[in-house]
Each structure stands twice: as C-alpha cells, then as structure tokens.
C-alpha cells in the first residue's frame, strides 16, 4: 500500500510527449492537482537523452506542487530523472529486473485481466494500471472490458489505477469496483483547460488531505506526499544553501528527495548568518 499514491494519473502518448507545450500543460495540471496528480511520461518516439531531458523538465514543473512524475518503461530514465515511480507496460521489463536499475522506486505494471494481474503481483509490482475500462482512441481494437477489469485487478490486494476512456462523468463505475484512482490521456491533455479538467476529475475522486507540519517554528499545511526536497522547492530555497533537520535528525542533500513528511513533523531549515 502506497499511502501517497496520487488518485489522478495524466498519461502521455507519443503525440503529447513529442508535441509542444507538454511541460507547460503539466505545470498547469500540477498547480490544480497538487499531490493528487501523477504525470506519466510514456513515449517510444523519443530517444533516451531526449526522454531524460523531458523527464527532468517535467519533474521540475511538478515537484513544487507535490505532484508525481512517473516514467514508463525506462527504468534508467526514471532513476536518472529522480521520478517518483516507474510504470512498466505489458511488454516491459520484469519488475525484479527493473528494480536492479531503480531499486528505490515504486513499480507499476499495466495489466489486462485477472491472469496478468496475478502475474504482476507474483512479479512484485507495487501497484497496477488496469484497462481498458472503456473503448479508447489510443488503443483502437482493444476490447472495452468495463469495470470488471478493475474488479479482477483489485482482487489481488494491490492498488489499482483504472485506465481507458475515463472521464469525470464515467469514472464512478471504476471507483465503485475498487479503483484507487484513474488515469486519462485525452480527457486531460486535449482539454482546452487542462487545470479545469484536473479539478473536474479530482471532484469525483477521494480527497487528499493536506499535512500540517512545523517549519522553523511555524505551522504550515503542505500537500500530502510532500518530501523535504519538495518542501524546499515550495519555499523557493536552494538545497545547497540550507541545512535541513527533520525531527531532530540532519538530512543530507542526497536524502532530501527520499524523505517524505508526515503529520506533526518538525523541520528546521538553517543557514549561516553574521556572528562573532
């Protein structure tokens, strides 16, 4: 169980990933979705270097809002970009092999049907992306399986993100079938107002409560899922110019991204000032 797994997943396809304005649209969605949103970079149209460069720009846009970056299939890119999770397609690497590259990331597997779901669980996946719930333009010819595909995936106990033709208006069936959250491509990226589309989805999804933590002696509400690195980004602080103490323990710069905040945490951010 990943307590901070976002509820709404904005998945790119080749057209979106290679198209103009993807980072700007992701930033607008993140501002609306905060820690409730994950953006999945899914493309086969870009080579490794271009994909990593895009992943880094996406992460920089998402992180200040506590939104996740999930990289699909490319475990190396996910790790190098500092993504929050890795999602493997049906023909992607085995989970155990992906973990050799990115040992610290949650790993998702796309599944169709009960047999694939059980195989993914046995392989060690942390959560599942299950579809297609409805017919979708991105997978022409794939059968629309309805909420049943979610039920089959959920029965193994992992968190399931439903995918396939979902909109704020038709997501209730997947959610009643036990989906943790929903994923969409066109309903988000093709929307005239992507931030408005995010808000419309989140309105039908379970709420993500903010955390209250103490930073330098002051109470502060931060989005659930915020890490220390995310907190510094929200405060517009350069990690190189500040020393971070988290619940009385010093956290090194390279540990900031992996340190998630919990309710009631006490954070001290210090630096050098004039003194005798």
């Amino acid at each position, binding site marked *: 169980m990943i307590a901070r797994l976002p509820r709404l997943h904005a998945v790119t396809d080749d057209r979106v990933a290679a198209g103009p304005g993807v980072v700007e649209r992701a930033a607008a969605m993140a501002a609306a979705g905060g820690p409730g949103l994950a953006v999945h970079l899914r493309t086969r149209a870009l080579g490794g270097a271009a994909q990593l460069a895009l992943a880094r720009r996406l992460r920089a846009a998402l992180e200040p809002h506590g939104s996740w970056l999930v990289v699909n299939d490319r475990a190396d890119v996910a790790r190098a970009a500092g993504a929050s999770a890795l999602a493997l397609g049906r023909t992607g690497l085995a989970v155990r092999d992906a973990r050799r590259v990115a040992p610290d990331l949650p790993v998702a597997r796309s599944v169709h049907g009960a047999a694939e779901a059980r195989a993914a669980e046995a392989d060690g996946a942390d959560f599942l992306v299950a579809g297609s719930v409805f017919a979708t333009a991105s997978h022409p010819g794939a059968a629309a399986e309805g909420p049943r595909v979610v039920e089959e995936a959920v029965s193994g106990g992992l968190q399931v993100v439903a995918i396939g033709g979902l909109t704020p208006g038709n997501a209730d069936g997947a959610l009643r079938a036990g989906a943790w959250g929903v994923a969409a491509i066109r309903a988000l990226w093709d929307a005239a107002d992507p931030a408005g589309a995010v808000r419309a989805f989140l309105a039908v999804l379970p709420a993500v409560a903010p955390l209250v933590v103490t930073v330098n002696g002051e109470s502060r509400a931060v989005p659930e899922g915020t890490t220390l690195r995310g907190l510094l980004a929200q405060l517009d602080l350069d990690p190189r110019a500040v020393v971070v103490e988290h619940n009385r323990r010093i956290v090194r710069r390279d540990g900031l991204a992996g340190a998630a905040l919990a309710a009631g945490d006490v954070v*001290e951010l210090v*630096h050098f*000032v*004039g003194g005798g």
Partner: protein
Amino acid sequence: MATAVTASVVQDTPLVVGGRTFRSRLLVGTGKYKDNATMVRALEASGAEVVTVAVRRISLDRTKEEGILYHLDPAHFFLLANTAGCYTAEDAMRYARLAREAGFNEFIKLEVIGDQKTLLPDVAGLLEAARTLAKEGFKVMAYTNDDLVTALRLEDAGCAAVMPLASPIGSGLGLLNPYNIRTIKSRLGVPVVVDAGVGTASDACATMEQGVDGLLMNTALAEARDPVTMAHAMRLATEAGRAAYLAGRMARREVAVPSSPTAGMLS
C-alpha cells in the same frame, strides 16, 4: 606595505590550529555590522582568514536579509561556525552538527553560555560538549573564561584550541587579567586564541604581547565609528603585539637610565 616590512624582519611561524595553517593571527566575527558592504571591506582590511559565522533559521518569508554566504566568498575566507546563543551542551552540539553539515570544514567555535548578563561560559556544559564533539571528529575551538584549570581540562577534552576571554563578550573592556592569559599560554600545548573583550588597537597589541597564538574580535570592529579603518588598526596592532612578544621587551626598572652617553659632555 606594512605586511611586507613585517614579513622581511619578523621571524615567526604561522598560526596552526587542528593541523591547518592560517595566514593571519587575527580572527574576526561577522556580526553586528551596519551593512554587509562595510562588513566585507572591514574583513578585507583586517587581513583575517578565519571569519566566524552563526547558525540560524532561514527566513521563510524571504523579506529579510539573505544568508551571509551571499556576501562572503567561502573560497577567500575560512568559515568558523559558532554555537553562540546556546545555553546547554546538547544545544551547542546540535548547532555544531548542523554547521558541519553545511559542508565547509569540521572546525567549530564552541560556546556554551551559562549566564545571560555576562555571557560567561557554563564550564560543565562546555567540557561535556567539547569532549563529545572532539570524539565526533570536530576541531573544537572552545570559548572559555580566563581560568587555567578549565583551559587544561579543555585541552584534555581534545580541543584543537582554547579561547579564553580578555573581558566579557561585546564589553570592549580590554585585557583585564594579563597574568591569567600568560599563565594559560605557558601551560597549554594547543594554541591559545584570546576571544572577546578587545576594544581598541592598544588592547589587541597588549593581548598579543602576552605571547598568545591569536586573537578573535567582532564588536571592536563592527561598533567602531569607522569599522574599515579600525580593522586596519587591529591588523597592525595584532602584528605589532606579536612582533614585540617575539622581540622580547626590555627589563622594567624603578630608576631612569639615560639613553645618551654621559661622557663627552661640554665642561
């Protein structure tokens, strides 16, 4: 100019603390200056390499002063973090560890204050913190009172330097007990750096004449009417006092002895 002359005449070894050699025996603080530009010019005029800094919370609203590293080049100065404002060993150790995490060096100017009015040290807390931090690999420079036994204990605790006061912090009262300072210097193996109390150049000179290894000051510069000129004066006074100590002063006599020949006078 002055340094060039000094260097050519004075046979001295440099100040070495905790295995590191420093280019000046004068160490200066960075607090209480009316503005950062003045501070930077005063630091430069002082010729100091070691400058002290304090560890404090960063201002989250970003409307207040930025950190000191926006004004000081850490490649040009050696940053000596202090634990000023700490009243327990535990607090001082916490600040020391945070300071080390900033990544500049393992030196710490350890202060554990015992009294708010005089800012005199809590000797028990100071020794406890010094012992623990030295074991953790810190190069501890301990601010203490001018007491020989405490100084000896601090050396035993593993301090890299012991820093007795000339007079209380920020008082500008000058060197109150030269005998105590001389005694401490004569009995310690580690460097003795007098910290606090110097008010003007003659205080700095008199302190260095006691044979101590270095001198640390802040308020005497920051609160001078012209901090940059005072920094220059302190640099000369520190060098003068050091040179006079090395030269060895003449004996004191209770009678006058003429400097000019008594022979050859006109009849």
